[in-house]
């Protein structure tokens, strides 16, 4: 194919040109891609997307809305990367393509307004608090659990069931124990825990303090930036990365811990990469990366916590979040915590680390696809006969609650630390 346009304006993607060429087009990704399992068309699967990236680089595919749409159908679950014989960094390529479209075309106005707010922590908080007050006007309770559906269903979100926004966002008041003998942990709450599931935040504080840890919180509950990067807003994501590093500068802590694996992987993987070229930040990003942990990994690998005292008679099944299992390699630790609770029996589901289809705003932008991927998860969960579903990600929790409710399944879905906290009371 001849190059229709010299690719001299593709700086973001050219950085990944080598990564694109190592794809052998063997197609092994078809076996594991949750999107491909539903669509069974090649643009859905990693091989197709990597070849589209090659086509952008060769000038055969213009960087436009159509390209943006093609790269939007990916949950970034990383299953393809695990299956890839050639080690193609598919998620990086997808992210670069999305960023390239934004670089070339700018953000659509809705995203510009929303991300503009997300970039400013105080605006985000004010908006979330206003929305929490107003949500009863827009949402009605869904039938059987603490979820809500739109009162006037329309457009993208018509079928989805959402948890309500928290009336009181998670805000840790600062260290409760001043003894100073234990390790000091900065608990990074993240947006989902702060505004949707503050209970996960309180449970995190509870289990950490029970283990003798001094818990501190960052001054502002700002976004980690992943939602912006997922939509190609690299500038916004980088700005948030700098903001996080700035606000943590001068705080003393031994470890940074989060109950959201996407937030954790921001500190472990994304910030060092985003800020690599910035002398003011690069070294700090590396230092933070070295002390950032998912909470289950911190409890098991660093604190070596013992089992809680109270019995919880329950059969629990565990869903592995993509960004925890494949992103951070943490699968054993949450299971150890769960099975350590006296009375808890673990009943594994089929393919526990298969993507639930949530993937943040993917669940809105591709509602039908997201629900179809989730429906498989709901079936696998139902087949376990477990009474409780545990996971270690607030985003997965939201998606699992929704897809279970779609089939009238009222099994509770909780974060691992919530069960752990309950078993210690």
């Amino acid at each position, binding site marked *: *194919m001849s190059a229709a346009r010299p690719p001299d304006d593709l700086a973001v993607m050219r950085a990944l040109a080598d990564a694109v*060429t*190592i794809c*052998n*087009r*063997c*197609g*092994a990704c*078809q*076996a594991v891609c949750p999107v491909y399992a539903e669509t*069974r*068309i*090649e*643009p859905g699967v990693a*091989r*197709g997307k990597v*070849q*589209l990236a090659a*086509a952008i680089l060769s000038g*055969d*595919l*213009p960087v436009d809305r*159509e*390209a943006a*749409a*093609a790269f939007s159908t990916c949950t970034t679950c990383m299953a393809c990367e695990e299956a890839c*014989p*050639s*080690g193609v960094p598919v998620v990086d390529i997808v992210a670069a393509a999305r960023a390239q479209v934004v670089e070339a075309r700018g953000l659509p106005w809705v995203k510009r307004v929303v991300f503009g707010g997300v970039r400013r922590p105080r605006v985000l908080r004010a908006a979330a608090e206003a929305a929490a007050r107003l949500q009863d006007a827009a949402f009605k309770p869904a039938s059987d659990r603490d979820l809500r559906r739109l009162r006037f269903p329309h457009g993208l979100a018509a079928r989805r069931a959402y948890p309500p926004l928290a009336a009181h966002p998670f805000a840790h008041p600062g260290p409760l124990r001043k003894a100073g003998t234990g390790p000091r942990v900065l608990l990074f709450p993240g947006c989902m825990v702060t505004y949707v599931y503050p209970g996960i935040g309180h449970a995190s504080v509870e289990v950490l303090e029970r283990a003798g840890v001094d818990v501190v919180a960052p001054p502002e509950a700002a976004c980690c930036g992943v939602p912006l990067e997922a939509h190609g807003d690299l500038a916004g994501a980088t700005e948030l990365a700098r903001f996080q590093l700035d606000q943590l500068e001068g705080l003393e802590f031994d470890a940074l811990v989060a109950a959201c694996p996407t937030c954790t992987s921001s500190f472990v993987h994304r910030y060092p990469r985003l800020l690599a070229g910035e002398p003011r930040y690069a070294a700090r990003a590396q230092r933070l990366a070295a002390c950032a942990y998912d909470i289950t990994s911190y409890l098991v690998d660093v604190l070596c916590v013992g089992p809680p005292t109270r019995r919880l008679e329950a059969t629990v099944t565990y869903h592995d979040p993509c960004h925890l299992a494949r992103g951070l390699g943490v699968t054993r630790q949450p299971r150890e915590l769960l099975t350590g609770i006296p009375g808890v029996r673990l009943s594994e589901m089929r393919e526990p680390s298969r993507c639930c289809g949530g993937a943040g705003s993917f669940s809105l932008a591709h509602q039908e696809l997201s629900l179809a991927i989730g429906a498989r998860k709901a079936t696998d969960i139902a087949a376990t006969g477990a009474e409780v579903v545990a996971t270690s990600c607030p985003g997965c929790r939201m998606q699992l609650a929704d897809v279970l409710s779609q089939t009238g399944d009222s099994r509770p879905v909780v974060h691992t630390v919530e069960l752990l906290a309950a078993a210690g009371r």
Partner: protein
Amino acid sequence: MSDDLIRALASALPKGRVLTRTSELLCYAYDATASEARRVPDVVVLPASTDEVARVVRIARGAGAPVYPRGAGTSLSGGAIPAQGGIVLSTTRMDAVLELDAENHCAIVQPGVVIQRLNDLAAAHGLMYPPDPGSVAVATMGGSIAECAGGLRGLKYGVTKHYVTGLEVVLADGQIVRLGGKATKNVTGYDLVGLFVGSEGTLGVITEATVRLVPAPEARATMTATFAQSSAATRTVAAIVAGNVVPATLELLDATTLRFVEEYAHAGLPTDAAALLLIEVDGPPEAVAREAAFVERVCLGHGGVVERAADDEARERLWAARRAAYPALARQSRGTIVEDATVPRSRIPEMLAAIEEIARRHDLTIATMGHAGDGNLHPTVLVDPDDAELMERAHAAIAEIFRAAIDLGGTLSGEHGIGSAKAPYLGWALGEGGLDLTRRIKAALDPQNILNPGKFTA
């Protein structure tokens, strides 16, 4: 022409099953063949039934447009690439297992069924579908039948053509024919089923297949043997088969492959070994015990260092080296051309020597692994598709490898097919008479040349 064609297809198929955007078409421009250039089709269709396939073919015939049947696009000789534009017909929406008849040891499947899925269903009845190409987890039944795929069990269990007993095919004129069936013995007229197995989509579109299943072996024994000289390994292969033992798997990894595998997987392989054999015998427990003991004796007798798996975990460990071979090679370079020249088993030592000599002369890295038991080797040339000079050397070397295989009484392809990649060499294997017969069959069934044109029948 193209707009009319697309309009006609759009009115013949339900909404959403005709793809025309550039971003969609670009994703059907390739298969897994590193040496073949991308070719963008004009349109992609996703029929969900035999009737819809027939409609597409009739429209194509009316328009004189090429039709390229495509399964998972994992073909390794360019078979699924739309060489001359036109219509890519994807069978991925036809993915029902229509019947699993445990009593008659057979299954009826639609073409888009993934091979592994059939195997998973068969396993529940203690049965298996033996053909297992490396792409078994993604490749479709339709594609693997059209290419007559092989795999690691070929020595004992044969290849795809030994398992297909019935087909439904849409011919180039849009007619639907049903050939063969569940009967395992069938000499009623020409072997029309056999005509379409391995026809690479040039004679018709496979829309349904009846395939044989066999009882899954009760037991198996697995071992690896490493040798200081590759001739010792190939003599071992000959001695095992001469002892009338037919292992299910008898795989060879050469020194170059072993070195890359060890670098990649750190499996603890001896890096000074010249060759490794992975051998698995299967069957009833008593036979497996007897055969495994024999194989082990033969390996030891030829100076092999043997490791035998005591349990499933150890078996997985031994297989890991073989499974890592492709990823290890894929990570060594930006591209790999996997060939599958095949020789009679007794000529393997000469073939290995020829490959080594050719690699040296063209200054190429060629790692050879393969199914030593059936003479089907996979010399894998490490290339960079963007390096024109390297690609030229690679193609020259590949041509010489084919020549060597044919001179040793072998053939161009054991299991990957001819497609476009090996089409230039077809005459070497078939001769003028064979080429002429091929063209006459093609002309009789597809006089307009609309089915997968630009491939080996061109």
